[in-house]
């Protein structure tokens, strides 16, 4: 299990990060004493460090240099400062990457995953592969594959994102707005019709696994995935 050390002085933020990272199977620890960060680091021996710039007593750059003198593990800065110079400063002090506040959960996990993979080899991702499963229907977001009863089909990136969202909130209504938001970054051009087209495609993919009428349209609200394949 990978260990992640969180050096951040806002307790709420630390708790949210911890909660999120636990879901992905990471072991986390946050700093208790801000004047002995290096000692705590050496005791915990983490695989990766999340580091804030503005800290009590010494700033993040200082601790970054301190950690660098004893370890080569990936260090990711989390900071509100979005200037080019601040990022250059961070990298020059030995950091590997930079995340600006406010950030999305997805960005944090994506960056953590990619740095762990780079630092500790490809087996790193095997630990926390992202799959969602509902009543035997398994979605592998990384490999873009949908499986039911040993029957497998490939999905496009956008289709996988839509299904992922619907499966996470199974039997609940997911609004059109939310789905549009999710697929936005993959598309050069998004509008209401784009979503309609993709929902139709997802329905076809589900039909290929002999799932019919599971993806319901709720007029004026959004879509709902009903796991009606469980009796099959």
């Amino acid at each position, binding site marked *: 299990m990978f260990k992640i050390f969180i050096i951040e002085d806002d307790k*709420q933020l630390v708790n*949210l990060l911890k909660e999120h990272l636990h879901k992905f199977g990471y072991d986390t620890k946050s700093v208790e004493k801000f004047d002995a960060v290096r000692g705590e680091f050496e005791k915990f021996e983490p695989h990766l460090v999340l580091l804030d710039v503005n800290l009590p007593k010494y700033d993040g750059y200082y601790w970054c240099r301190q950690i660098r003198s004893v370890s080569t593990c990936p260090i990711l800065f989390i900071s509100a400062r979005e200037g080019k110079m601040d990022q250059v400063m961070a990298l020059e002090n030995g950091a590997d990457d930079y995340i600006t506040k406010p950030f999305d959960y997805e960005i944090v996990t994506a960056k953590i995953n990619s740095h762990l993979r780079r630092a500790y080899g490809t087996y790193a991702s095997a630990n926390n592969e992202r799959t969602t499963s509902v009543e035997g229907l398994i979605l592998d977001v990384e490999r873009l594959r949908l499986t039911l009863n040993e029957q497998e089909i490939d999905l496009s990136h956008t289709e996988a994102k839509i299904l992922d969202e619907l499966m996470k909130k199974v039997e609940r209504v997911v609004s059109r*707005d939310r789905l549009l938001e999710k697929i936005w970054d993959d598309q050069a051009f998004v*509008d209401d019709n784009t979503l309609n087209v993709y929902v139709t495609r997802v329905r076809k993919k589900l039909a290929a696994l002999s799932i019919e009428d599971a993806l319901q349209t709720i007029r004026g609200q959004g879509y709902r995935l009903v796991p009606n394949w469980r009796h099959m």
Partner: protein
Amino acid sequence: MRLFFREQLALILFYFLQLVVITGIYWLDGYRHLSISLYAAFLSTCLLIGYLFFRYITNRSFYQRMEKQLTSMEDFTSNVQQSPLAEGLQQLLKSQFRHYKTDLHNYKYKLEGHIQFINQWVHQMKTPLSVIHLIVQDEDDSRFIAIGDELDRLKKGLDMVLYTARLDTFERDFYVETLNLQTVARSVTSSQKRIFIRKRVFPVLEIDGGLQVASDEKWLSFAMTQLMTNALRYTVEENRKIYFHGYKCGINTVLEIRDEGVGIPQSDLPRVFDPYFTGENGRNFQESTGMGLHLTKQICEKLGHRIEIESTINQGTTVRIIF
């Protein structure tokens, strides 16, 4: 030279008056030798001319400087001639300048402190924003969506404060590089996707993938975000588009942001770049500070880009950034 003569005119007049009075007294007393009198007057005038000449030479640079306009603040401290009057004036100016400079320095220091404070404060506020952002992120409930929308407004407001404060120290805070226009436009539209979706207005990017501009990414993105939020705010009908059109015009690259919104009245158009100007649209729509376009224009000027705006009522507004 002219100043010198004006200054010495009284002395010259006084001298000639005295010459006439003294010669007159001797004349009335009975001493009536014209040639001797003229000779004495001639000698005496020569002495006066000698004295004036000497005065002028010793104070020449002083007078010359008095006649010349100052081009910069430090101008007067240059070479000075050794004469009591010039030196006295120099001392006075110097001490005055010193006081003035101390005052100016104090204000500068205060302003810098203020900017630093704003900077720090804005950055500190981003931590609670991050926390709220993370809490509402995975929720799809209408209340959380409303909180998310308000959060977006807060974020935008904070950015506005930050960038306004930074504009004065622009020179220390920018980094020009070659940017891909399409990538920048895409990341800007993507960062505002929530508002696009909420308003059911969608962006259309018509920018050639190879189009590049030399600019600062952060400032340019901020300026584009301002233009885009304006376009969004004044598009009231659903299912409209906002067009981002990038093209080459001669040697310049142009980015055009066109909306199909309410447009700006002709009478307001010349003033839209003025600070705090909100115009008719500002009164009809909420959330107008009158600072967005003003800031955008200033940023464009500092980056060396030109900005143009044209608009037709009920048809839309087009803003062009010419790189």
